């Protein structure tokens, strides 16, 4: 049982780390501000989520796990709100998103 | 080689301090100077904390047990630097607020926060 939990939590941690780095790459590589937000979204959901879930497996049934769960909840509430507020003020500031025409085929 | 890694922390901390120092003496903008002071300040905090660390040590909060194995951890880091720096941080932000308030007043009195312009206006009388 012990080794099973270890393997699962290890997997979560490693995959989460992978997604965090990919999100970071996205923040760096993507062409304009609005697309970069999607990169940040990856680190905030999958990266943070999987790493915290991996740690929860390590924590077992204890208050530590509860705290990790709360951190996850707070992150999942605040990070989209912050993103939304950020995008909204960028839009009102006059930063035009670069979009492809809807009719044009890919 | 062990010298390099053993003293690496001090060197980086000195580098940070000097960065802050450079901002304070080379930049004319008063807010930027306060930012430089802040960087210097945090570098000093880091210097103290570095000295308090003991190898194999753990945070000075009892009981020091490993979460998973339950084993007693061998040593505590030094609590004294923590105590000194803890109060210093809050005092630091209070004094920073005072400095910023002074800057706001300077802006209102002189219309600028660039050091050379303030001095020039003073010379004019």
């Amino acid at each position, binding site marked *: 049982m012990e080794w099973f939990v270890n393997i699962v939590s290890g997997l979560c941690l490693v995959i989460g780390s992978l997604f965090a780095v990919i999100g970071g790459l996205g923040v760096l590589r993507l062409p304009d501000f609005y697309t970069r937000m999607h990169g940040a979204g990856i680190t905030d959901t999958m990266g943070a989520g999987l790493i915290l879930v991996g740690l929860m497996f390590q924590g077992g049934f204890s208050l530590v796990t509860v705290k990790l769960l709360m951190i996850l909840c*707070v992150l999942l*509430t*605040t990070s989209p*709100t912050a993103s*939304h*507020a950020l995008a*909204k003020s960028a839009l009102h500031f006059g930063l035009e998103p670069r979009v492809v025409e809807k009719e044009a085929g890919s | 080689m062990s010298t390099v890694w053993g003293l690496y922390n001090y060197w980086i901390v000195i580098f940070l301090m000097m960065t802050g120092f450079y901002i304070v003496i080379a930049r004319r903008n008063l807010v930027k100077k306060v930012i430089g002071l802040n960087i210097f300040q945090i570098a000093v905090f880091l210097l103290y904390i570095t000295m308090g660390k003991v190898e194999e040590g753990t*945070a000075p*909060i009892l009981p020091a047990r490993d979460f998973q194995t339950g084993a007693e951890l061998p040593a505590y880091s030094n609590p004294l630097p923590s105590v000194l720096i*803890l*109060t210093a*941080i*809050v005092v630091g*932000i*209070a004094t920073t*607020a005072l400095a*910023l*308030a002074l800057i*706001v007043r300077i*802006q*209102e009195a002189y219309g600028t926060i660039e050091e050379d312009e303030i001095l020039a206006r003073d010379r004019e009388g």
Partner: protein
Amino acid sequence: MIVHSILRIVAKLLIPYILLFALYVQFHGDYGPGGGFQAGVIFAAGFVLYALIFGLGAARRSAPPAVVESLIAVGVLIFAGTGVVCMLGGGNFLDYSALDHHDPQHGQHLGILIVELGVGITVAAVMISVFFAFAGRGRIR
């Protein structure tokens, strides 16, 4: 007109928990990391969030500046007053063992708790009123 309803609702959800977290940090200073200094700053941060979302006027209505400014002094008085009570109890200034003659440990514990409370009140009040002072000052062109 409700413009930033998402921000407003999430702030409404979060503010009570930030304030509670500050109080938690305040009272658990003996057991884990934390204490008056940290708690005061976090409490003030909760108020700052309120002021940022709902405006300075609303924040001033819910925490009148006169009350906050007098709390600055109250915190210091609690701290120093504890010391005086210790002296009245026959000990030295700030020697909390004198707070409880039968059980000096309990006295120490109580003294630390009260003193931290004083620190927390002062820090929170100073930070809130400093923020009010900065934010309330209009710009001069």
